[in-house]
């Protein structure tokens, strides 16, 4: 088993990390204490393990850690600015867009990638983009509302 050093910009900090070739990205971030990224289906279907690799959403359960070499990785832990929540995080709270919360980190990261690429999506675009993220609790409607709220502060509840 090979080991190598990779350079990753992880949640805004440059890190040099020594990893074994077969280690998955989810294993790497969780081993660093970033356990907000969740494992569920392990087959790239549920989206619970979604992180952003160079700004694009990927399933970290099926991405090798070495693929992150020289790239940026964002996890849920990097989203808030200190105690100031990201608009998506606040919108998820305001809209009750989670229950158990297990899918939420992946859900929010996928939504962030959408809003970074398309700041003003409509409901159909949100549904289409988020198709790769499963939630078993909410029935999805409140998540769509939260993402639309985050995109348009004027929509937000008083």
């Amino acid at each position, binding site marked *: 088993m090979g080991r190598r050093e990779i350079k990753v910009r992880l949640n805004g900090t440059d890190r040099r990390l020594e990893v074994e070739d077969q280690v998955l990205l989810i294993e790497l971030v*969780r081993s660093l204490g*970033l*356990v*907000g*990224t*969740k*494992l*569920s*289906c*392990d*087959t790239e*279907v*549920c989206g*619970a393990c979604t992180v952003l690799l160079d700004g694009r959403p990927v399933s970290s359960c099926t991405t090798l850690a070495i693929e992150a070499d020289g790239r940026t990785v964002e*996890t*849920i*832990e990097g*989203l*808030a600015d200190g105690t100031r*929540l990201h608009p*998506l*995080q*606040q919108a*998820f*709270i*305001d809209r*009750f867009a*989670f*229950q*158990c*919360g*297990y*899918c*939420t*980190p992946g859900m*929010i990261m996928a939504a962030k990638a959408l809003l970074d690429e398309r700041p003003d999506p409509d409901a159909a675009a*949100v*549904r*289409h983009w*988020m*198709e790769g*993220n*499963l*939630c*078993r*609790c*909410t*029935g*999805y*409607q*409140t*998540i*769509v509302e939260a993402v639309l709220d985050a995109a348009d502060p004027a929509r937000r509840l008083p």
Partner: protein
Amino acid sequence: MTERHRVAGTSAPRVDGIAKVTGAARYAIDLSVPGMAHVIVVRSTRAHARIKRIERDAAAASPGVLRVITGDDLLAAGLTPYYGHVVADHPVVAIGKVRYHGEPVVLVVAESRREAAEAADLVEIEYEELPSVTDASEALAPGAPILHEERGARVGDEGMDGGEAGLAGNVCSFAQVEWGDVDEAFKRAPVVVEGEYRFPMLYGYAMEPYNALAFFDQGDLVVYSSAQHVYMVRRDLARMFGLTLARVRVIAPYVGGGYGTKSYTKVEGMAAMAAYFTGRPVKLDCSVEEAMLTTRSDSAFIRARSAFTRDGMLLARDFEIVMNSGAYTDNSPLVNQKAANRCFGPYKIPALRVRSTSTFTNTVPASSLRGFGAPQGNIAGELQMDEAALRLGIDAVELRLRNILGPGEELLPGKRGLDADLKEDLRSLASSLGWPGAGPGSVGLGVSASDAGAYPTSTAAVRIHSDGSVTLFTGSTELGQGSRTVLSQVAAEELGLTLENVAIVGGDTGVVTYERTTGASRTTTVTGRAVQEACKDARRRVRELAAQVFGVPVASVEDTVAGVRVNGQELGYGAVIERWFGVGGEVLGHGAVRKADGFARMPPFWEIGCSGVRLTVDRETGVVEIEKLATVGDVGFAINPALVHGQDAGASMMGLGAALHEELIYEGEQLVNSNVVDYRVPRFSDLPKDVDLILAERRDGAGPYGAKGSGEGASNTIGGAVASAIGRAIGVFPHQLPATPERVWRLMRSAEAATKHRG
């Protein structure tokens, strides 16, 4: 007159909100402790076989391996390696024989998960195959292979165990509900509808797979797990290791979805055994595939007939249910009883006969899943109302209204009267859906009233601190339903505080007060009452302290919003506490509810299901598209309306999964779709364009401020509602769920063929 509230009745933000949106929330699967080892489970590759020999030397010698554990080891150590809350027949790992493909047989414990997995591949198990049976009807036939030659010990828990005797063959449990002269009624009835109905095996897919972390601390067993019912798991573990309840501590931090699938013991016994034999903290994390081999829901085959007068009044109903309950008892006796109680619906029925048989088969053990028993029976009971309406030429909503029970009327003899107004609920549902429908959309709806299986033993404690803030202790587990928020609201309401001044601690048997379970939609109603009692007790203590401080009779001390009035002075709780102690201090209030007073009559509440859909069917492909989903949450009083909406939306979407897509499929002896690729759950694209979540608040529940439980009702009726709407669209009612495109397409073709034949 309606009470006025400050905090109850508001959609207060979730108290776990920030933790869950920042990734800070810790689930059992996220936990680790120094020196932790890992266990991998070797599972059976046979459905029914005797274990002849287990070759484990190679595995034991593999790098990093600490111990390889078999069922014989558990027996040799003098442990009680069986669990189960009704019948203790479920071995921690197989002992002597295996009863389903995927059953745990050997535990391999190693320093790392990878080393354990590599060693697990080296374990060889030699089997002597036995004939197997995976179909429930075949399992009941004469000559079928018997799964349990000897029955496990009955646990004798009043709330769980009907004390059944004389069960033979593969009968796991038998339930019967009967009154009136059914045979005579059918003989005389002018109109009879009959049919056979099938409800699939389901997997709840809580997204956090089963996991546990176990260790011994000075001989006390400590287990962190994804369990819903920490106190039930504590009892099972205490029995396994011969420990007193005080020596077992079960902790469920945040739980990644439950829906009943995490009720009762799952993998905690395996993790604890591994810790026992290695002396190390041991972590067991299931993959989703392993979780699917751990628990599923009971599938059902139902023969039903219903007799009506010509003007649509029910004369009699007759149901025969066979449930496929898998290899072990687990919760199937309760599910079976509930299926029997819930299949016939909340109607006036002069003569009724229900017989329901829960059956052992060589398949994954079945246990609880949202609404247990109710969705299975509801499809038969409600579809027959629709089929009868068609035959009688009576509108299907009108037919239901003619037969439906009114508030206070008796659904089951000797039980609590109906604490809901189903007629009004049904009317608002029908109106939301635009019943009877126009244009291409076809409408279907259904009702149910489920006897909440919530034995009302519950306690709570509240500590008032010297600054007047409080900490609430509850044994109820936060599964996502929002119990920490709702119970905090109840405490804030009772003590006159803002939510910011209420902290809550839950899910740790070593710390919090006893709670029987977190299931059957009980928490708001039953635990909520215990919280109210704890707050009253704390207020009483504060009055006593105030009386002592001022040297006045207790009776002269009055409650204020958040403190007391004594000697003409108003003091907050904190001021009374500080004056009494001199410095610091606190007051502890304890609350308990039991099967007495408001909960003397079971069930503690009837959980109402009232939901429906408007849908279209693609006549070329059989694909069903849900255009509108509507639910009526008849919850008495919504302590947090947004959370009630969340329960109704989540439950009905889960129900739509079962109605249209979800089904565990056995081919031969093996479950062939034990992954989330082939077992398809609802996605964003399945969200109906229009969702209407209606609340009915009539303060008719036994919980705080007239509240009743929520969370299962909407899913109980949705399967039948979808089948009913499809039936109206294509002219023939599907009797089997899920209504997959292929099944719907075949129904359309057979209906066309029948029409041609007649033509």
